[in-house]
């Protein structure tokens, strides 16, 4: 049998084949099993552009606690009502804001930007102490027409945090961010 002539090659071929197969299997598994964020449905068709670019509002006007608390927080409906008590435009969703307010309900905004439960992140530390701009992480919200339905900070893994911390001379002590 000619097979015995170059047995080394056969072994190599076998190994390479097995490796290729394993790699392919892993790739398929990764692609199909990888957790992917799915878009959420926001209750109101809120446009950041209209408010930020149009009305020249600041982020902290609505996300009030961004400079003092770990959470930037959603605005309660009473903030909306400061302007939308009277109709401001013709968008079909606008009256619904008033409906919520009249029912004494908060608008059930859906949170999209989430960190894992064992991570502590403080907006106050980053905004107030490190003087970071909101856009550095959240991007150009002043151009966003539609409400946010997907996490904006998709690539945020531990390496990203640590690289930025290293760059800015912030501590990379594990306890600083992990709880």
């Amino acid at each position, binding site marked *: *049998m000619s*097979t*015995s*002539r*170059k*047995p*080394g090659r*056969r*072994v190599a071929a*076998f190994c390479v084949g097995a490796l290729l197969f394993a790699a392919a299997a892993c790739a398929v598994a990764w692609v199909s099993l990888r957790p992917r964020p799915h878009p959420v449905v926001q209750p109101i068709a809120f446009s950041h552009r209209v408010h930020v670019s149009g009305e020249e509002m600041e982020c902290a006007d609505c996300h009030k606690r961004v400079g003092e608390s770990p959470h930037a927080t959603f605005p309660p409906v009473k903030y909306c009502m400061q302007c939308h008590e009277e109709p401001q435009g013709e968008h079909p969703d606008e009256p619904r804001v008033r409906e919520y307010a009249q029912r004494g309900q908060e608008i059930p905004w859906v949170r999209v930007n989430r960190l894992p439960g064992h991570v502590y992140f403080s907006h106050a530390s980053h905004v107030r102490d490190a003087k970071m701009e909101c856009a550095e992480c959240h991007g150009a919200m002043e151009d966003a027409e539609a409400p946010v339905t997907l996490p904006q900070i998709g690539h945020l893994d531990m390496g990203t945090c640590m690289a930025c911390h290293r760059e800015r001379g912030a501590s990379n002590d594990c306890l600083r961010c992990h709880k």
Partner: protein
Amino acid sequence: MAGVNDFSFSIKPILDPIGKGGRGFYLAAAGLLMVMAVGVYAYVQQFVHGLGTTGMNRPVYWGVYMANFVFFIGISHAGTLISAILRVANAEWRRPVTRCAEVITVFALIFGALSVIIDLGRPDRLLFVIQHGRLQSPILWDVCCISTYLTGSLIYLYLPLIPDCAILRDRKIGWVWLYTLLALGYQGTQRQKHRLEFWISVMAILIIPIAISVHTVVAYIYATTLQPGWHSTIFGPYFVVGAIFSGLAGLMIAMAIIRKAFHLEGILKDIHFNNLALILLVMTALMIYFTFNIYLVEITGNEPSIMASVMEKVTGEFALPFWGMIVGGFLVPLVILSFPKGRTVTGCVVASVLILVSMWIERFLIVVPTLIHPRLPWPTGIYNPTWVEWSVTAGCLAAFALLYMLFARVFPIVSIWEVQEGVDVAIPEINKRFEGYMPDVPDEAGSAAFPWEGMPPHGRGEREP
């Protein structure tokens, strides 16, 4: 010259079992598979529900699994280390023994490593050890040493297997494609053979320090902590001796079974058992010496935290296994092996079984009594291993036995070519070596100075231990 096909002894009993199995084989395999299945089921339970399914707790954070780990790693020293030492020492009687020893190493090592993985709370994070490994941790030393040892033993098992695969390939026995693949085109040419032997001897030398390092670092896992009774300078050598001790016992049991099952009485002869038994005797004495050392020093030191665990063994809850181990595992084998009549196959098997069981107990008694008595005053710990731990242990043992059985059905369990080589090469070599030992003979005494010069090879027994 080393033949792939021509042998001066009957290789039929060696080749017979290859590729087929009798009723006994299938029955045994079925039995082992069932035990394994229970073990796998138990592990799945443990994986899903956590280590809470075991009997471990605070402060007994380690238990049966860590005892298994040390035990299996110990058994693994049977083979490669022994065969390597014998090879390096040119002990010619080793030839039929080496293969079955080396196989034990590979499989025992696998289950040793597996025992640690089984013991992990988060086996899914196993790769963190490589990704985030800290070389300062004795566990990393273990990972390095064990993986090196496993690789080394695999190579060391594989190299001598090449010519035998070539034999099987050529004779078209069993899975020829496999043998063809593994034989790597070995034809037994002089150069191939020379190169093979070179690398075998390189591996034989390399593997000895690796093997010693493995069990030393296993001991370090215990000795580097501050736990009373573990924090001892003697632990490294003590573990190594214990490993060779239990490994030898394991090897003798395996050999006895193989000899019986494959009717290899003509190849694995009484003399092999006798010689191994002599080594085992030395190890028994060493083991007794070490044990005496450890306990004498601990007891005379009389440090309360250490004495708590020592007394737990001497008079407390573990007195029965402890004294059983001392008497049954050390003293009785010492007596059996001391007498030529005890160094028969039966005697060896009895002694080995006693030793093997005792050595498992010994590992258990290293782990548990110390943990039951931590340094801070604490209501004495409790530890009752659960069915999960026993099942997983049984499953590991069964899987080990099954793998060994399968190996023996796929590959020659006695290295055919090495035995043949003994006949071809070793006899003249021994003669020559022996000549070297003797006082120089003056030329005039004639060329026929040695009376055994012309005797037929089969009439002589191997005389070198």
